[in-house]
């Protein structure tokens, strides 16, 4: 296809859009709604991921060490754990740090503090807080600790206890809930995306249906299929780009308003901040979706009228 033909298609597509009047406006409106839904789904997906990550981060397993365990032995265990592929982070709390944290936590509980003082010394154990990449992997981490117990120089195990057994049921339930929410959430998002895409397709089909006489005339005066299709595809792409631009502009006040109203409910997730931080991503997804939707819907819609 040479430049002259391309230029004519671009000009004709632009004129078709400009002269389309109510049909162009209605197509842009529906496409705007479709892309608006896709944008909402991007935010929903980010919120879902944020919430699930936050919940996942709240789950951990603590490994408590006997009071006689040396710090170097504990740090050796930490190194071993960090090498496991299923481990996300391991943090060390020394016995002194545990005591400080305990005192701070019970600063208003004089009875407990008094009892602690009467005990003398530090009764608290040093510990490692292990966080898995996935809540379902805690069992294998604990199995690793049991299978290769860390020993002190005199051959006794330095691990006093692991709090996994008492938390197992809660962790398992939470892992299941997170997995189910992730699957269902993304399935719902996919479903809405497909539904909105189908609506956009139907609208473009309807717009092209109004031009079916025009298409048959073009065929009869000797226009090739590609020369007939081209301007409609250009019109579809213009529709998609304008709709994407409208959504990107409207999202600023909408995200700001929704962000200020919902940040508290969403546990710190701000839609406005997410939009500002990920503008390039949202821009790319919406613009590309608009272009692809407009072009593909036009090609598919016009195909059936090119058989004359």
């Amino acid at each position, binding site marked *: 296809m040479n430049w002259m033909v391309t230029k004519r298609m671009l000009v004709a597509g632009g004129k078709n859009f400009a002269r389309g009047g109510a049909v162009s406006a209605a197509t842009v409106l529906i496409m705007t709604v479709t892309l608006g839904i896709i944008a909402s789904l991007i935010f929903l997906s980010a919120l879902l991921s944020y919430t699930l990550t936050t919940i996942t981060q709240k789950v951990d397993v603590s490994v408590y060490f006997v009071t006689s365990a040396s710090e170097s032995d504990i740090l050796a265990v930490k190194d071993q754990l960090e090498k496991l592929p299923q481990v996300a982070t391991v943090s060390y709390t020394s016995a002194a740090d545990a005591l400080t944290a305990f005192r701070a936590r019970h600063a208003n509980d004089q009875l407990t503090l008094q009892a602690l003082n009467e005990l003398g010394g530090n009764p608290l154990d040093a510990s490692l807080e292990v966080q898995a990449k996935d809540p379902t992997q805690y069992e294998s981490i604990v199995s690793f600790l049991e299978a290769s117990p860390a020993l002190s120089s005199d051959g006794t195990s330095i691990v006093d206890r692991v709090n996994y057994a008492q938390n197992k049921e809660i962790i398992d339930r939470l892992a299941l809930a997170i997995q189910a929410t992730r699957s269902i959430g993304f399935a719902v998002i996919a479903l809405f995306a497909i539904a909105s895409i189908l609506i956009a397709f139907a609208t473009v089909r309807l717009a092209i249906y109004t031009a079916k006489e025009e298409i048959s005339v073009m065929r009869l005066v*000797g226009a090739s299929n590609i020369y007939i299709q081209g301007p409609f595809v250009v019109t579809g792409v213009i529709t998609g780009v304008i709709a994407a631009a409208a959504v990107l502009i409207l999202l600023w006040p909408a995200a700001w308003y929704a962000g200020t109203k919902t940040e508290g409910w969403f546990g710190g997730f701000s839609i406005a901040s997410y939009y500002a931080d990920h503008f390039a991503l949202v821009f790319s997804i919406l613009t590309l979706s608009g272009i692809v939707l407009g072009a593909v819907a036009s090609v598919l819609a016009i195909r059936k009228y090119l058989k004359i």
Partner: protein
Amino acid sequence: MIYFDKVTKRYGDTAALEGVTISVAPKEFVSIVGHSGAGKTTLLKLLLAEERPTDGNVFFESIDVNDLPSSALHHYRRKIGMVFQDFRLIPNKTAYENIAFAMEAAGRSDEEIATDVPYILELVNLSDKAAHFPDQLSGGEKQRIAIGRAIINQPDLIVADEPTGNLDPINTYEVVEILKKINELGTTIIITTHNKGVVDAIGKRVITVDRGKVVRDDAGGKYSL
């Protein structure tokens, strides 16, 4: 130039044409007449490859129209200029753009378009309506634009399906005069019509079709059913 060889066209059990054999020589002006549903439009649709015959063959010069693949149809149709009863102008293009479209579709250059379209607009006496859209034109003006579009690529053949069917007598007369002039310049013309006055005014070969069959073929040029 054109040869219908024992052409039959059926829609289900109904035969729109049955064993039709017609030949048209270059530079002829042929009027096809007949009642509604006689098969006149079907003949033209077969010639334009809008429909395929159930049986028989349609030849245009050496081309067997039935054998043309879909991808080659647009090349074939550029040899033919079409004029319709309902004008079939592209509604969102101006008069100028409607005529220019046929040239653009044929791959003609911008310079050729800039030269030829104003000339054709002048020929059909509509230079002052170049920027008007079809809904801003009268029936006669629309048909003159349609004729302009049909002749702009200097086709070998003009096919006009009831071109005066929607026109008043004055516009009918103008359209017939334009078609006669085009024919005098050497273009073959096939016209279908109900209008006795049009056929008699043309005064050339008349083919009468009735119930899908050619019942009369007069070189004399008088309307007769």
